[in-house]
């Protein structure tokens, strides 16, 4: 069985002190704990600091366009349902440019694990507001402070009855690794929104800020209770719950297609006889 080390050890392009390092660590641990081998995993990402993560994981990688990790991951999963597909990107990527795909992926309940490094900022492009940036936060692009209501990804995911909704904190590596394992094992769209300090562009939501606020959901918390989940997902401020907020057992889109016989995996051969019959209908 593969260990966390088998998932590699690469030099990164991140800033010293960035919250991404612990996420990377948790991810490697999670992959190993989930019993996966590098070649069984396909990491798909968009563009941004978070989206560089797959380059630092020893696995199959498709590093695509900004905002588009989810559709690319969806296509890959439908093509080869045997793959463990993980989409990993930033808050800007998934909730900004990719907002429409976020909604659709949840509705599809495609069996993809979605890891969002939520640093509440556009890191790679040097600090513009992302959809999760708090109201009033001043940046060069928002000189009068953000005027938009921030987007709550976990509440939205719960509302839309995503298969699996969790929130993690990059400062709690083992807990996060465990969330990742659960997310991977869940058959359906699994969101892990990960609170991640950005030391270069977010001086509000720092490591200390999160450390003070994040608390684990109690052991008797029932993630299948939608109403409770919604309430927890709305909790933000002095106390921020982390853990599995919600999950359900809806059948994933890829299973539907497999069962219908549409998705037959990559080794299936074209049946020319069958095609001939289809053609004859045109006679």
């Amino acid at each position, binding site marked *: 069985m593969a260990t966390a080390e088998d998932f590699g050890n690469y030099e990164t392009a991140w800033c010293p002190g960035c919250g991404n390092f612990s996420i990377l660590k948790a991810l490697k641990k999670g992959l190993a704990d989930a019993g996966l081998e590098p*070649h069984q995993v396909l990491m798909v990402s968009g563009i941004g600091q978070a989206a560089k993560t797959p380059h630092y994981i020893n696995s*199959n990688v498709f*590093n695509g366009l900004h905002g588009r990790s989810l559709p690319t991951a969806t296509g890959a999963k439908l093509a080869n349902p045997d793959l463990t597909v993980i989409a990993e990107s930033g808050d800007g990527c998934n909730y900004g440019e990719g907002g429409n795909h976020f909604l659709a992926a949840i509705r599809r309940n495609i069996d993809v694990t979605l890891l969002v490094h939520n640093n509440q900022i556009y890191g790679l492009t040097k600090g513009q507001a992302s959809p999760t940036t708090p109201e009033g936060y001043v940046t060069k692009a928002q000189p009068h402070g953000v005027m938009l209501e921030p987007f709550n990804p976990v509440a939205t995911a719960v509302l839309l009855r995503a298969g699996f909704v969790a929130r993690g904190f990059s400062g709690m590596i083992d807990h996060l690794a465990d969330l990742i394992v659960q997310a991977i094992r869940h058959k359906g769209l699994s969101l892990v929104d990960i609170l991640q300090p950005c030391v270069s562009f977010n001086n509000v939501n720092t490591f200390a800020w999160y450390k003070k606020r994040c608390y684990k959901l109690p052991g008797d918390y029932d993630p299948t209770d939608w109403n409770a989940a919604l309430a927890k997902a709305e909790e933000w401020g002095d106390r921020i719950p982390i853990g599995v907020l919600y999950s359900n057992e809806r059948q994933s889109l890829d299973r539907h297609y497999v069962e219908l016989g549409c998705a037959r995996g990559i080794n299936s051969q074209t*049946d020319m006889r069958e095609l001939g019959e289809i053609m*004859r209908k045109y006679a």
Partner: protein
Amino acid sequence: MRQENTSGDVNIVIGGEAGQGLVTVGDILSKTVVRAGYSMVVTQSYMSRIRGGHNTYCIRAGIDELQAPRESVDVLVAMNDETVGLHRGEMTNRGCVIIDGKSKVSSDGLARLAVPFSELSDKRYFNIAALGVVASLIGLDEELTAGAVDDAFGRKHPESVEANRAALAKAYDWMKSRRLPGLVLPPPRRSGGRIVMNGNQAIALGALSAGVKFCAFYPMTPATSIVLSLAAADQRMGVVVEQAEDEIAAINMAIGASFAGAPSMVATSGGGFALMTEGVSLAGITETPILIAVAMRPGPATGLPTRTAQGDLEFVLHSGHGEFPRAVFAPCNVAECFHLTRGAMKLAEKYQSPVFILTDQFMADSSRAVEPFALDGLDTVNPGAIPESFNGLYKRYALTQSGVSLRLLPGISRNLVVADSDEHTEEGHITEDLAVRVAMADKRSRKLGGITSEVIPPQYVGDETPELLFVTWGSSSGSVLEAAEVLRAGGRKVGTLCFSQVWPLVPEQFVERLEKALRVVGVEGNATGQFCRLIRRETGFEIRDRVLRYDGLPVTPEFVLAGLGKVD
């Protein structure tokens, strides 16, 4: 300029409102015509609405091989009064109007078959009665027609079979004493055996025959029917057809699927394609095979959403930021829709590049009589190489002479496959090493060499040293071929050069023909002569005389001949 029928063909227009069932009648009639052994070209013209307005379904049938629509009308099936006024001016001398006997509309001395529909059938079967009248009029066998009706309704509405039969029989009966000999088709030269297929169906069939396993789409006329044909076959053929939330998702899904090992395609039209252009560029740099079918309609923007055009050639050709190789096919007829789609899918896999099928509303909806495709033993796309064929450290973008790197699929072996939208190393990892950048850009460029070596030459027909040479591409080709024949019949030395692959161009394949001709005329369905400009860019040869159509209708032989008069 109207061209009269002389050659054993008949042109039927069924006109009426959306929702009146024109397409049902048209489809059954065209099936009967082909089963009877005739050649056929269908042209559909419809408005961007679900009910009302004015639509037409035009069937040209004949004993010789037809390749183009005709504008002049021999039989007008007027499903409402408005139709008569709208098409009166198009009627030939032998023209005849089929209309409800109750209608008071004037048909200005045109031969008129005033059909007592309410005597022939119940209101629900008027369509079938009308079908019977026109089928009988052009001399189609009643049993043959009835068979086509059964096939159309039998499975879905078994309860209606008898009523349909009865309405048809009554109509044939009523017609017995009313045959107009001028409209009866001569006996066919062959005995049927062909299939009836339009361009979009042929694209779908071609893709299936090549092994397509994934298609994502967002509905957009006139591309949607490609996808619906695939969806109808999804369980039988093992293909996933997924409606995406938008066109961006569609192309990124298809790229993801292709990367993972499913031969993949998308289908859209101009506005939807615009949203895909970033994805085209992604396919370019990640070297992911993908087939992109673009069915053109008149722009800009929403334009005329249900009409035809050839106005997006330059857009498709230059779509996507940055530089990377591609190939663009533009089928000249329905059979080519099948064969070129197959070829395009294979080319996409071979050169790990985006490849385009550029079609349009006219071709999409134009049913033709087509020889069934020989499917036995056809090869399919086999994505990626066999991992066992490879050992060593796998590099997705290994630099090679051809520019093509060994493609492995993720997950099926211990080799890790890494693809990147950034500039990348041979291993697929992001890099900012500028020497590597140049090596990778050059590698990608080299693939164009291979693609170029496989270019399908334009088809030349005609005299070796013509006084007049037509240059055209894609769906306009049929009309140009026919216009040339008309001119030849009038004694002129005419050649035609029809391009079914519009990129890359290989000047050696055709430039001599351009230079030898006394006069060259470009024919295209756009306002700026995009293909003529491309030829000049690639060869220096300027095609100054151009016959351009951009009113939303297909280029027809008449349009070419009339246009020739103007540029003459």
